């Protein structure tokens, strides 16, 4: 008992005080900024392992980017990854960062369904389904609820049963073998419900895009309420994205 109290005392406060303004340590690869400098575009496009870079004008699609950073290492004056981790959005087009643009990635308010802020702004219960994810996004989603990020303080929690959930968080490129379980789980969630796709693998398939072992038809059937890019997603990207989605709107 006394030992445990001593440990509590030694640990002190571990939580990130303000999730919306927290700084990430080191050289995090968040939102890229592309300069208008003239470079050999074909060569730059060729570097990318997942065809996330397109030319004329040069742009990076964060829904396909695996954040390997090789383009920025090869062309440091053209591409810089900033530590801006707020890159979640509900508009797939906003994930495409064009050259010369240095603005935050934001949600498109017109695409947010009214019932989301009506029902979920004070409490959001989510069911997570890993459909071929490599375990990295899953670890980061778990980290969202740890004592550091403490997502529970905003009333956002992961629950065990889809019956208790207000929405689904999908990770992984969606394998054929998981297509049916994913559908069953989604169908079991009561209306109204939201869909969040977390991680580059889930948004586009990432490095697995085009593999014959995938079945991504689920995603074309429904409206996606939030895209959270990352490989894996950063807990701060996820929490800030979800908070922005469910924020009270007039």
């Amino acid at each position, binding site marked *: 008992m006394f030992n445990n109290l001593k*440990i509590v005392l030694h640990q002190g406060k571990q939580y990130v005080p303000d999730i919306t303004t927290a700084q*990430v340590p080191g050289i995090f690869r968040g939102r890229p900024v592309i300069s208008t400098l003239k470079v050999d575009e074909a060569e730059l496009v060729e570097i990318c392992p997942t065809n996330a870079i397109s030319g004329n004008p040069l742009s990076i699609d964060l829904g396909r980017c695996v954040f390997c950073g090789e383009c920025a290492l090869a062309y440091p004056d053209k591409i810089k990854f900033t530590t801006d981790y707020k890159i979640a959005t509900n508009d797939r087009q906003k994930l495409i960062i064009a050259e010369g643009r240095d603005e935050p990635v934001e949600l498109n308010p017109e695409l947010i369904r009214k019932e989301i802020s009506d029902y979920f702004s004070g409490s959001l219960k989510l069911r997570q389904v890993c459909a071929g994810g490599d375990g990295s996004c899953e670890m980061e989603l778990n980290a969202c609820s*740890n004592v*550091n990020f403490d997502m529970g303080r905003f009333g956002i929690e992961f629950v065990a049963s889809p019956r208790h959930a207000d929405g689904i968080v999908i990770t992984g490129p969606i394998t054929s073998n998981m297509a*049916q379980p994913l559908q069953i789980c989604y169908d079991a969630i009561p209306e109204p419900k939201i869909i969040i796709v977390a991680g580059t693998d889930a948004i586009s398939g*990432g490095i*697995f895009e085009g593999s014959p*072992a995938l079945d991504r038809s689920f995603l074309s059937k429904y409206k996606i309420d939030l895209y959270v890019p990352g490989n894996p997603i950063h807990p701060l990207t996820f929490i800030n994205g979800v908070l922005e989605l469910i924020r009270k709107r007039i």
Partner: protein
Amino acid sequence: MNYISIRNNETIPIATIPELDYYLFLELNVYFMLKTADSHCVSYFGFPHFGKIKLICCIAKDEQNSICVSSSVVDAKQPLPSFSNHNLVFEKFEREIHENFGIDYTDHPWLKPVRFPFNRFDKTNSIANYPFFKIESEELHEVGVGPIHAGIIEPGHFRFICNGEQILHLEIQLGYQHKGVEQLFLERRKLLQRIVLAENIAGDSVAGHTVAFVNLWESLCEFQPGRDLQLSRTIALELERIAVHTGDLSAMCTDVAYQLGSAVYGRLRTPVINYFQEWCGNRLAKGLIRAGKNNYPITQKLAGELLGLFEDYEKDFEEISEELFSLPSTLARFEKTGVITTEQGALVGTVGMSARMSEIKRDIRLSHPHDLYPELQHEPVLRNQGDVYSRGRIRKKEIDQSMGYIRELIQILPSVELADQLGNPIPNSFVISLVEGWRGEICHCAITGDNGDLIHYKIKDPSFHNWLAMALAVRNNEISDFPICNKSFDLSYCGHDL
């Protein structure tokens, strides 16, 4: 000679692997396995070869630091006697060969599907109709769990047969995570694509699988990595071990409802993975390891920060560990729960910490050292009870050991060498790469064709064998102890399903 003896990360012409008659091939490999305790099978696989199937078997001899490779060409339509009938460690390898190519075995104990790959031989089989072991009894009941689990973890289905609260039998059905990784290694032709693939095999073993791939690739291209590259790789592997072991201790506390332990270990993991981010920009080390170049050499500043991190970490880690491993309420749940005996471990061919917890001395860092491991004179941490307690205790000791190794390694930082340009892979070659990830041995094998292109890529994750050990460990335990048994092994679904 009936086999060729090679070293870890050695590239040989494929033609130098002796091709044996199947019966001789069986006798040779089964003989190896049965006669000496220091040898075990690290990989056994088949691939299409002029209308037939070529089987390649790799047996590691731990004492001699060598790997014995032999092969045989068989007709897929011809049923064969199985290796498994003589030695059970081959059971999953042969199930995989059966599933991929349709080879039938006359005396295999259970030729069940492994992962329902997209290119499986029998497409009429689907993951929805897996043939579970059934028991005809009115007193027993079945419990099905998954594929989607209660927490945020990967999918897999567990089918228990229980007598009241007691588990009599557990069968684990996997394959939900199958993404066709091995096939993508052949189709994605840019080196960076293959490295990114290796990084995305298993998110908790990024360093493990990526080091296995780059070591293999550099060997194929006759590239000798400089000391700075080897240092980064060795440190990344040990740091990954510290991070995951810490996270697992947190999860083990969660599963026995020791909330303080769960919170403290959970937060102790944060600075370790944040260090990866400071080092390479990613909390799970994606982007850190590259073939033939070092994007993020360890600087004096980084080394200093790591030492500071360990100093802070160690105080809190020792304090909470002392409490966890002496608290009667946690010990009551850990001790004698989920036991794997030495005999059972040897029977199923466990690897890594799942082997060492039941006193099987199996550790690639000792037996087939790569990168800077030869200098470390690694001595594996062993336990002999094979229970949840042992698996927790090993993690604690291995974290201490890894911190010691890293402290030793970063005393002198090598200058960053300007690496030679990475060439092309040697045509018609075979190469094997073994790495001791935090979970156990990771094995990658590659075969190149006439123009140096990859024609076959084979990955074996430590979970491949260890899943069966987990299924055996829970027998006769209460079903309420299943979560703690499962978490204490912490096996990979995606590493298994590929």
